[in-house]
């Protein structure tokens, strides 16, 4: 494999890094007044990267041809699927940011640049074929994310969120590194293919510890129980567009990374880690559901909802089959649409002075004062709860199908019973908006970007979305095949 070929394979990452650096310079020279132009340029960079990625997914690239730099990075269909989701989510988060920050005159030109660098990190994460690449991508993403969490300097909650995220994130990175070093020590290699080959014959106790620590570190990144404590605080404290970002793009990247590590590097020893995943899945579902019940702030509620959703995604991982991986990807795609829709709807709730309305009680009677937002949010909530005929049901369906096909019926039954607990708090949001008397808190108009995002995501999760499932299923199957072929 020559160098030019490798560079061709990493074209999306290349575009992102060059674009990010150029825009960083532009930001330094032109200052904050150019922030809107830089945001638009960033979306263009993302679109360019996506164009290069889409062809990879479309052609279903997999196997040795996709390995760049001697297997350090893999630009296969699996990475492409995750990247496209990440790019789309990031673009949405760029679109909703200016209006939010303008309220505090805090829209600065660094915001789009930081998003771009975070996206670059995620892009590297999902294409990683080596523990080193993995760690570089992960840290690149995290460093940008820490800054983004604290982006709203005038708000002490935002500072607190940034600091909390940093301290706990650093701890998790430490755990992950420790696991990686153990793995390296007992297998003698950092490449996924090498680790897989070394573990194929058996798993020593030391290597098992490595596996466990790697899983613990990654569980922190995807906010799976018992490493979820930071999520509600960070989600609540961070500026809402940043929360939207955290709940979507890095989640996709971390789950994809976890899939790559679990099914590829540790794929030969799936029995060793299956118990961990099952525990994390069920615990996330239950804790996510129970924790959400008492919440009064919609952002905290959505944070618990994302913990809950990660639980369902992990059900697909526990199956450890191509079908399970494909189901996880389908779930991720639908999850991204639902999450963006929900957060955009929350962003559109402003009181007469233009402040964000975040308390659930203040949303009372929203269906009478702002019926458009209320109906969209209600459909999104029913969808996250997994009630048919909304698309959220299909996401759960494929995951459970994978679990049942893998013979894990008990897991499926417990998880699905947990989804009923979860339904309770989604219903509560609907109840407040539809059944209660108007609190008359929410006022003010919204711009077209918010409406467009809200309507598009609502249409995607509406029953019309089922027409997409054939296409989505094929793409996810291709991506999953690429993952298992590499393994």
């Amino acid at each position, binding site marked *: 494999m020559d160098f030019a070929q490798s560079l061709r394979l990493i074209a999306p990452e290349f575009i992102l890094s060059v674009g990010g650096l150029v825009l960083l310079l532009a930001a330094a020279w032109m200052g904050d007044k150019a922030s809107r132009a830089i945001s638009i340029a960033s979306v263009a960079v993302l679109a360019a990267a996506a164009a290069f990625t889409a062809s990879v997914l479309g052609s279903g690239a997999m196997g040795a041809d996709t390995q760049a730099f001697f297997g350090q990075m893999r630009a296969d269909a699996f990475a492409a699927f995750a990247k496209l989701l990440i790019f789309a989510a990031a673009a949405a988060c760029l679109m909703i940011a200016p209006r939010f920050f303008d309220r505090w005159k805090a829209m600065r030109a660094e915001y789009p640049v930081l998003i771009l660098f975070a996206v670059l990190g995620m892009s590297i994460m999902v294409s990683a074929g080596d523990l080193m690449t993995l760690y570089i991508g992960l840290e690149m993403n995290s460093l940008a994310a820490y800054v983004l969490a604290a982006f709203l300097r005038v708000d002490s909650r935002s500072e607190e969120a940034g600091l909390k995220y940093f301290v706990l994130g650093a701890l998790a990175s430490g755990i992950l590194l420790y696991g990686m070093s153990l793995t390296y020590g007992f297998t003698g290699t950092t490449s996924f293919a090498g680790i897989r080959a070394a573990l194929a014959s058996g798993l020593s106790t030391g290597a098992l510890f490595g596996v466990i620590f790697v899983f613990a570190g990654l569980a922190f990144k995807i906010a799976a129980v018992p490493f979820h404590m930071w999520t509600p605080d960070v989600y609540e404290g961070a500026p809402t567009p940043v929360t939207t970002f955290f709940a979507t793009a890095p989640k996709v990247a971390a789950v994809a990374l976890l899939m790559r590590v679990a099914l590829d590097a540790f794929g030969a020893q799936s029995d060793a880690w299956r118990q961990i995943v099952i525990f994390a899945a069920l615990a996330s579902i239950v804790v996510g559901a129970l924790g959400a019940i008492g919440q009064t702030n919609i952002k905290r509620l959505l944070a618990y909802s994302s913990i809950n959703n990660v639980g369902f995604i992990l059900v697909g991982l526990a199956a450890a089959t191509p079908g399970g991986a494909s189901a996880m990807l389908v779930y991720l795609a639908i999850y991204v649409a639902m999450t963006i829709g929900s957060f955009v709807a929350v962003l559109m709730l402003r009181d007469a002075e233009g402040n964000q309305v975040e308390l659930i009680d203040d949303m009372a009677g929203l*269906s*009478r004062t702002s019926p458009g937002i209320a109906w969209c949010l209600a459909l999104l909530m*029913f969808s996250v709860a997994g*009630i*048919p*005929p909304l698309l959220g*049901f299909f996401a759960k*369906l*494929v995951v*459970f*199908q994978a679990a*049942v*096909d893998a013979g894990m*019926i008990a897991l*499926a*039954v417990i998880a*699905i*019973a947990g*989804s*009923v607990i979860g*339904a*309770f708090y989604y*219903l509560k949001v*609907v*109840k407040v908006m*539809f*059944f209660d008397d108007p609190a008359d808190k929410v006022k003010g108009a919204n711009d077209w970007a918010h409406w467009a995002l809200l309507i598009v995501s609502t249409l995607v999760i509406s029953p019309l979305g*089922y*027409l997409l*499932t*054939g296409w*989505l*299923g*094929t793409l996810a199957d291709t991506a999953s095949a690429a993952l298992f072929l590499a393994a």
Partner: protein
Amino acid sequence: MGAFPILSTMLLVPLVAGLACFFLQAKAARMVALVATLIDLGLGVVLWANYDIGGAQWQFVERAELFSGFSYALGIDGIALLLIMLSVFLMPICILASWESIETRVGEYMAAFLFMELLMIGVFAAQDLLLFYIFFEAGLIPMYLIIGIWGGKDRIYASYKFFLYTLLGSVVMLVAMLWMIGEAGTTDIPTLMQYDFPPAAQTWLFLAFFASFAVKMPMWPVHTWLPDAHVQAPTAGSVILAGVLLKMGGYGFIRFSLPMFPEASAQLAWLVFALSMIAVIVTSLIALVQHDMKKLIAYSSVAHMAIVTIGLFAFNVQGLEGAMIVMLSHGLVSGALFLCVGVIYDRLHTREIDRYGGLSINMPNYALFFMLFTMASIGLPGTSGFVGEFLSLAGVYQISTWVTLVCTTGIILGAAYMLYLYWRVAFGVQKNADAAAMPDLNAREWVMLAPIAAAVLWMGVYPESFLAPMRKDIAALDARLSRAAPEGDSKPAEARPEQVRRNAANAMPHHDAADGEGH
């Protein structure tokens, strides 16, 4: 079948009208909803008229591979046809019942009802397991909103209870469905109905389906959501709930549990019988002491549904036919009874039985209709209730005399609470001046009640019209069940040949066709 996709059209009409209602003013929304439901009723009549009795088992079949993992497949047999007819028949009446009583957010209300109609038809017409589940579960959303937005004082508690109870019942069924799909390799319901699952797995699958259908039905002891939901829902919501939604449970048993898991059904029939016996007696006794009219009728629904379940698990043609007729009859009668409650509730805004009295004096027409439906609920010969209950009990008598004895007692209790209700409301002295001043039925209420009364009498006098379309399907189901049918304890004596001949001379032709009936 014919090129015209009539079932899809029946789904499309309420969908389009429902979406339109969101954007319409109250007056226009009412009109659109009424017209749309009437169009669906018309299509339903066309459906019935073109249904080829004795023809192919599945008719009006449509299929399109639109989704990943399952397909858009519709088609009906006689059983589904009748339940679809029941749905489209009740819907215009529901819209009329809400004509004046719903004043706020009329557009959304009408939209919710139209979506409800879409989902009900979808449930009965779906030929794909997952498509069925989607329609089956989706009904929760509009019903949750109907109860929660337009309901009574404790509507929020009732709406939560309704939603979470039914959801918890159904999700386990979903896992069972997924296992079945993996095992049989298809989501096609007609194929699955012929598939023989291993008996060991059947028990679990049966229990999973049972969890869902028993809640939906509802069977004792998971019936408690029903009285709450009924009492709080607006009149039309109660009508749809009692009239059609409860039938989904019975339909589930007849479409899934029995044909797909015959061995498990036979094995666990004792459980169904035990719960049904308790339900009939307990809920009848509870109904006797109610002060709230809607609650009383709600408990009577639970008792009637128990007659359906024993009929279904009788494993013979009479029981199955009886169960179907009880479902149809109960759909009409309980719907009509809720409408009767609604009529006087609209005038006095209370459901307290004691607040009324002597209504036969100032509302004679109303009292007549109310009496007819009361009698039909009791099962007076000549009304639809009699036909269904008689067939059901005759069927189960072949299996278990004890169950028959207990359930017949329940029917006597049923007569007690219904007559007691009627006596307190319609007869006696006019103790409340405001109740005595209420005007009799107006034209709109006549239009609501008269068609149901006609249907109830029709079904009671000439049930053949309703038995004929499903005879072949019931016979097929009976044949499928015969290998597992349990031994009965009634030991009916062999009919003497000369008697058989004499009966055959004046028997209706269908008695020959349906094997085993009338012995």
